[in-house]
């Protein structure tokens, strides 16, 4: 064992590392935290290029956040105050990060910027960037309203009618049952990726579609009112009574819709890029506006975007970087990569989106469906939200026990309601 030699090698290497880490600290710089996705890459490049054209003296340092452990990275960096100036953010972080002063309120910057027209962005979408309608903590990347994707090949094989814009959920269920009988395949894909059966963007629209709500005017939970229960029941029925939803224990090895085992999927526009990455296309698919509930059409939204962290040394500089995300330039680049649909009303009829090559043929359905997008219910107090914390846990457990048939919907949600109110009330 020649440990002396090892030691020398070690010292030399360390010196090399140390020099490397000291050298990079002089120029004015802006740190940009983002995610590495082929569909998003072009947009990131545009943001960097545009910013560097405006501020040639400022260096942009790109830091990638490995998708799997975003949360612990951010919270740790936030606790120590080392977040990058501009950060990639998802809707679920907006409220806690805004409340914890981790992200900067860009509303004044947006209003004071003559080159920026906030009113051009769809208003319901901006709700995801605000806390109870106040402030602006994230520029969303796209008009990310949950829309129905369907496997046209499967529908046709089974002899089921293709979805139309005036479908009700009853039409949907009937078509799905035809498919189930003819092919044995399921219809409602429960995510396959991260959003599973408890994703608020699927459940809450059912509640509202039956005239229910999750919180009353007194700020207490109302999970067991007759209307709300009817909504939950209709959602759970997709698994139980109708047996057309992907069972919770059916692991298709990936997204059930993408692997061709589920006839539909309810998701945001960006997943087009994943579908189109399949070459050749394994089946024909298209999109359609979501079906309507008794009380009308409701669907969820879920978006990511960029925010100025409270840590930014020069928020105005960081704003210059972020705001370009909402430019026609960047929005059309996102559309061209099938990573989303433009969030600017002025681009509603733009050939850059309307004339995009199929699939999806019916791409404008994303925008038509946009007005149906609702916001996640806001719960006051410190009991969590529909994304995380006790409220999320209770709703998830209630849905799971009901879907698995361990309890009735009424029993499960009465328990959840009592637990949530015990927290909200005390």
């Amino acid at each position: 064992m020649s440990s002396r030699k090892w030691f020398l090698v070690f010292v030399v290497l360390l010196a090399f590392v140390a020099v490397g880490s000291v050298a990079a600290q002089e120029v004015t710089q802006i740190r940009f935290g983002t995610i590495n996705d082929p569909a998003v890459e072009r947009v990131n490049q545009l943001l960097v290029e545009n910013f560097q054209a405006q501020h040639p003296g400022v260096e942009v340092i790109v830091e990638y956040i490995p998708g799997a452990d975003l949360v612990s990275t951010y919270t740790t960096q936030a606790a120590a105050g080392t977040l990058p100036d501009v950060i990639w953010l998802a809707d679920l972080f907006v409220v806690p990060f805004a409340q914890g002063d981790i992200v900067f309120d860009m509303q004044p910057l947006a209003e004071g910027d003559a080159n920026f027209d906030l009113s051009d962005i769809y208003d319901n979408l901006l709700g995801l960037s605000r806390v109870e309608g106040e402030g602006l903590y994230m520029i969303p990347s796209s008009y990310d309203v949950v829309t129905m994707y369907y496997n046209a090949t499967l529908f046709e094989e089974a002899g089921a009618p293709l979805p139309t814009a005036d479908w009700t959920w009853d039409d949907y269920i009937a078509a799905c049952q035809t498919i189930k009988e003819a092919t044995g395949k399921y219809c409602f894909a429960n995510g396959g990726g991260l959003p599973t059966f408890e994703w608020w963007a699927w459940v809450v629209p059912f509640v509202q579609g039956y005239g229910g709500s999750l919180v009353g005017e007194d700020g207490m939970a109302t999970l067991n009112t007759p209307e709300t229960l009817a909504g939950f029941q209709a959602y759970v029925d997709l698994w139980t009574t109708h047996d057309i939803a992907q069972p919770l224990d059916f692991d298709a090895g990936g997204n059930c819709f993408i692997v061709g085992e589920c006839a539909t999927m309810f998701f945001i526009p960006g997943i087009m890029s994943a579908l189109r990455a399949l070459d050749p296309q394994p089946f024909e698919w298209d999109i359609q506006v979501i079906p309507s509930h008794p009380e009308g059409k409701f669907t969820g939204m879920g978006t990511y975007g960029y925010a100025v962290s409270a840590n930014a040394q020069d928020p105005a500089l960081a704003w210059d970087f972020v705001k370009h995300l909402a430019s026609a330039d960047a929005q059309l680049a996102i559309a061209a990569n099938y990573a989303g649909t433009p969030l600017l009303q002025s681009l509603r009829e733009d050939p850059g989106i309307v004339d995009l090559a199929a699939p999806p043929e019916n791409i404008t359905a994303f925008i038509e469906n946009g007005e149906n997008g609702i916001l996640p219910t806001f719960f006051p107090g410190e009991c969590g939200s529909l994304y995380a914390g006790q409220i999320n846990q209770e709703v998830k457990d209630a849905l799971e026990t009901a879907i698995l048939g361990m309890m009735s919907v009424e029993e499960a949600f009465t328990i959840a309601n009592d637990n949530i109110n015990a927290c909200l009330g005390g």
Partner: protein
Amino acid sequence: MTTSTAPALKPKRSPHFWRNTIEGYLFIGPVVLGLLIWTFGPMVASAYYSLTDYRIISAPEFIGFQNYIDLFTRDRLFIQSLSVTVRYAIMVMFLGQIVSLLIAVLLSQKLPGMSIFRTFFYLPIIVPFVASALLWRYLFNKDYGPINGLLTGIGLPEINWLGSPHSALFSLVIMSVWTGAVTTIIYVAGLQQIPEELHDAAKIDGGNSVQRFFYVTIPMLSPTIFFNVVTGFIAAFQFFVPAFLMTEGGPANSTYFYNLNIYEKAFQWLEMGYASAMAWVIFVIIMIITILLFRISNRWVYYESANES
């Protein structure tokens, strides 16, 4: 055997007392410094957090023992996750140690080609995490997984491994045993350290291989077994990443491990104060079990130089 260094009565300080002390601390100096610099500070910090309402992104606010009170009175998942963890730890301890030891004995045979076989058995642990979560989900899949394929092939019923609340925890136990090569490696090294002539002596005395295993191998290996049992327990109590990646704690919270609970409380609920209280509760539990294991170890762990009490 020298037992004379551990007399029953406390001797007067030897003339070398101070020299021995200084020399001793020079030897353990690195770890003493390491604990002082890297470990105790963060531990004290987390102990303090456990007495606060600390939402990571806002400053901690002192609330006394409220987190501990909530934990025992209001948190229904506390007991559930503790029970999952204890059941897992017991299963994985028994199954894991036995399987690893048997494999280690097999791998310690002096036969040609053994180093290749050893490598084969160690392979499961060298697969990166991201990849192994995908692989195990595939292996356990109820519809097309190779494990169920094998079961139906020999006429047994299929098992809904990860999909049923009854079997999901046990599936993770199997996976942990399968990837228990760290334990195996340490057993193999321990077996190598047993002097050959002890086996030879037993052979001359006419002991067959089973007898040699129980009367020579096991006692001589007991310090290694003790190490694997203690560290195995600590590791089992802290297990959660595969559960996080493969089952997300489900179905029906049947794989909601205690440390997964801590992770979610800390980084998803952003309740670091509460998570710290949870961590200190499990810390005390692990510590009590470890102390018990050390106490019991006097009865069955055999050290060649028996100077350790």
